[in-house]
């Protein structure tokens, strides 16, 4: 029975935030509807989960586990809303309330969508190129002693240079700002992928290669069937690291000369002193990047199905 109180705690703060938002008049001119829509949606969401949890089982346990955190987020929404647009305690325009951010997200949704697509396009192009090039060069460096001898030291030195530091150089080589940004994202993704892939191949248990050779495998067959599948976990470790680095490169390179994208949008909003837009873009960025990470994780779990239950 103790748990069911926590289940209530998951939903009540959202309902309370909704009530206080409706009951307390704002001190600024604002369209409250988007924020109320969000709170109503979250109330309905956690309410439904609470009802479904009445049946018990693992679903209920999951809700009980998360309930305190979900509820706390609701409390933060309510307090933040009261301290900002309801009372003006937080100084504007630097610290807008959640209702203002939601208002901007709603009003400028098409601009956000377009900039999101810009960012995604840049990320997809740069990241795909970087991780493809990274895994290929990593496989070569890990597999061949000669490649390893010549390229591994170079990679170690080039790899530690932040891609952003290469902006002047890349600008000279690349014809326009988009391809410059793609190149920067690609470079920043390349290093972690190449490095972990090379190391991953080198750390594969030698007896796998010996067993394969005795079973009749040629060098090329071992490369395809032992070295590469054996390095897939390492490649994904590299890709996960690369994702974070590529994101920062992406945002910075959008800020310094792109014509679109979330980084560009933030710059623009800063120019107008429109902090609500800045925060809206940051929230959207977080959602976008979490989605990308989730997608990459999904691919990884599929490819590494053989590891299920092996680690942990």
């Amino acid at each position, binding site marked *: 029975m103790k748990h069911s109180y926590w289940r209530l705690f998951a939903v009540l703060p959202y309902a309370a935030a909704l009530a206080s938002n409706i009951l307390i008049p704002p001190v600024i001119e604002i369209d409250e509807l988007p924020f109320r829509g969000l709170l109503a949606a979250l109330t309905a969401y956690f309410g439904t989960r609470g009802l479904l949890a009445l049946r018990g089982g693992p679903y209920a346990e999951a809700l009980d586990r998360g309930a305190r955190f979900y509820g706390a987020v609701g409390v933060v929404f309510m307090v933040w809303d009261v301290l900002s647009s309801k009372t003006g305690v937080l100084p504007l325009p630097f610290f807008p309330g959640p209702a203002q951010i939601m208002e901007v997200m709603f009003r400028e949704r098409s601009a956000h969508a377009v900039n999101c697509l810009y960012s995604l396009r840049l990320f997809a192009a740069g990241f795909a190129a970087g991780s493809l090039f990274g895994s290929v060069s990593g496989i070569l460096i890990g597999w061949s002693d000669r490649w390893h001898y010549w390229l591994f030291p170079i990679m170690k030195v080039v790899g530690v240079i932040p891609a952003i530091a290469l902006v002047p150089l890349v600008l000279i080589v690349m014809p326009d700002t988009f391809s410059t940004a793609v190149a920067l994202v690609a470079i920043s993704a390349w290093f972690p992928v190449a490095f972990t892939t090379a190391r991953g191949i080198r750390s594969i*248990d030698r*007896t*796998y290669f*010996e*067993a*394969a*050779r*005795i*079973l*009749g*495998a*040629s060098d090329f*067959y071992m490369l395809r*069937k*032992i070295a590469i*599948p*054996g390095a*897939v976990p390492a490649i994904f470790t590299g890709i996960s690291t690369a994702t974070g680095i590529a994101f920062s490169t992406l945002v910075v390179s959008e800020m310094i000369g792109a014509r679109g994208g979330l980084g560009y949008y933030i710059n623009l909003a800063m120019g107008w002193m429109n902090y609500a837009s800045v925060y809206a873009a940051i929230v959207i960025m977080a959602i976008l990047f979490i989605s990308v990470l989730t997608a990459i994780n999904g691919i990884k779990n599929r490819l590494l199905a*053989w*590891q*299920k*239950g*092996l680690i942990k």
Partner: protein
Amino acid sequence: MIDYDETKTDLPVGAFPAVALPVVVEVKNVTREFRDDRGNGIVALDNVSLSVRQGEFVSLIGPSGCGKTSLLRLIAGLDEPQSGEILADGEPVTGTSHERGYVFQQANLFPWKTVEENVAFGLKARGVYAQRRSDVAEYLEMAGLKGFERAYPHQISGGMAQRAALVRSLINRPKALLLDEPMGALDSFTRMDLQEKLLELWQSFGTTMILVTHDIDEAVYLSDRVVIMTPRPGRISEIIDIASPFPRNRSSAIFVELRNRVLEKFHLAGAEPPVEYII
């Protein structure tokens, strides 16, 4: 019971029954020296000679570090001797061959492949999978792995993994199978189970078997001949014929006598008996 000793200088005579079958593996005066981290030489094998005839089951026993694995790796073609020569089917060994299968101490199945894919590996690697794909199910069945085709190695037991590793090698129909303590990591029941499986496969395929073990009981139970090695430098000190027909009974008087003989020679060779023997 045929009772004779072989001196170290003579090449060993063929197995019991003494039919002159062709020699499949011949090790001639092989010396292999390693360097340790400080650069000191370690003579893993000192002028070792051994010949194994077709279809024979030979066990290598000896204390840790006497060069059993080193010898097996040389025969497999995974390593080269400093001096001496190794012949397989009369030809000098220059590298690995699917004719000489190898089962490692740890099953070392490829973890990213299913049991079935592991067993099929040799056929695919050699490009004969299309003609022989139906063999895979047959070998899996032989190993008692039916129903586990799609399992990954970490999802099966150690004994199952070793059986899978065994048929992964056998599916290539090797002339000789080299087994480096394949049962070392198993509990005694699983081990006995695998011993039966090994005997069964040996008898149905006629594959020449060279088995490294630290279990005297196992060596006597399975082998035509038991080779006793001594360390520092690694040498063959004794080769004992186990002249007893299969299937053997571990509690029969003749088995106990043979085992005691091996144990005695083991002591004479200056080696401590393996711990596993004292039960």
